[in-house]
């Protein structure tokens, strides 16, 4: 029966011992059978879910990865148990099963090989390079040395500096709202024709990008204010097209 408790009572819940859900699954599978080829996936799913249930009863914090694996496994189990034609367009359950089995086998191989690798004789521990090198009668030449990681760190440092540097206003490039109001007022009294709003901006504010942006924004804000009070008229036919300004004749006359 699927519901039968597959885990013996000696099983101790210790999530910290596992590096992620796949390793937990692998260890469950290895308890099931020596040969990973013959493990029962449905049984494994039950064991995994049971494990998580026990863990949550013990109020162990579960990382999102464990829950994601749980939902995948629940899905996989339902696919294995339900008739095949319900899921025509998706991967077959046996493909999903095979894929999971492959990943478990691959992880198990890596784990075995890691152990074997670190059992090998190691330089400076089990075998040695020459202990010292004589420098007699030789010209010592200074040579710059660094490592890739140092260069990468240096680059990361410059970038983080930029990202985390405090917000700084460049005061001299900010067009003040009072100045803008004066300029717009001046213009309104002088001219009676429609004119592009950017033409109001003083020449010395047009010589760099930051200045233009600031002057445009402030002039626009000032003219909106004056339009609100009825001193000028603004016209724009559609979004992002030219914005024109003209003094309000009626008001000016008054």
């Amino acid at each position: 029966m699927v519901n039968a408790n597959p885990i013996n009572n000696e099983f101790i819940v210790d999530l910290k011992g596992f590096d992620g859900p796949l390793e937990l699954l692998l260890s469950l599978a290895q308890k099931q059978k020596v040969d990973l080829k013959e493990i029962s996936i449905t049984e494994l799913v039950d064991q995994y879910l049971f494990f998580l249930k026990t863990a949550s009863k013990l109020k162990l914090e579960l990382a999102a990865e464990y829950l994601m694996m749980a939902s995948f496994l629940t899905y996989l189990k339902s696919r294995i148990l339900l008739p095949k034609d319900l899921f025509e367009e998706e991967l077959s359950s046996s493909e999903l099963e095979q894929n999971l089995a492959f990943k478990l086998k691959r992880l198990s191989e890596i784990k075995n090989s890691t152990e074997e690798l670190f059992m090998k004789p190691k330089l400076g521990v089990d075998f040695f390079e020459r202990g010292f090198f004589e420098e007699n009668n030789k010209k010592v030449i200074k040579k710059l040395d660094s490592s890739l990681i140092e260069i990468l760190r240096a680059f990361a440092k410059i970038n983080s500096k930029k990202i985390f540097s405090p917000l700084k206003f460049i005061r001299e490039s900010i067009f003040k709202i009072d100045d803008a109001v004066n300029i717009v007022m001046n213009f309104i009294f002088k001219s009676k024709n429609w004119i592009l709003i950017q033409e109001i901006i003083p020449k010395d504010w047009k010589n760099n990008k930051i200045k233009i942006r600031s002057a445009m924004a402030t002039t626009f804000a000032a003219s909106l204010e004056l339009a609100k009070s009825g001193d000028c008229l603004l016209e724009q036919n559609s979004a992002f097209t030219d914005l024109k300004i003209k003094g309000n004749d009626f008001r000016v006359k008054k």
Partner: protein
Amino acid sequence: MNFIHKNENEKFSDTKTQVSELNNEANFENEKILEAIIFASSEPLSINDLKKSCPFIEDIDVSINNLMAFYSNRAVNLVKIKNTYAFRTSPYYSIHINQKVEKKVKLSKAAKETLAVIAYHQPVTRTEIEDIRGVSLHKGLIDTLLESNWVSIGKRRNTPGMPVTYITTNYFLDYFGLTTVKDLPNFKEMIEAGFSADVKVEEIES
């Protein structure tokens, strides 16, 4: 007649012996020059390095092989690390060497496994490492491996996003006493089981 003939024969064979002796002597001399150069270097040297130091030695490979054979039954061996050569003590005599073990690196289980994943699957992307281990990579882990000089950065993978790949270094091979990644434990079995692609290895070796 007979006498003269005999004499000529003797002469001939003498010259022959002399020539081959001279050759042998020259070869032995070359072998010793390489021995001195490799011994005096603090870093493993490549065939190219050796060619630069001794442009006059024609078949460096042959001399190197003779030298390796000469040292093969000694306690100090000439080892090949990828395409470089260095003298190392034989692991067989390690028990007698009570060196202060300074370099002993304590790696976490995750770091060891990640190193193995990089070694067997190289060049490998971060996502692939995470897929194989079934867990997202802890921050600073790759950093540690790069710092230890076992791991370096390989070519970007030619897939969408052009992700960075990781590879092992010559120092990694030297550290574990390997000549090539093919010497990794179970390497052949891993490839045959489809756990890592053969094509990739050729890429690394080239």
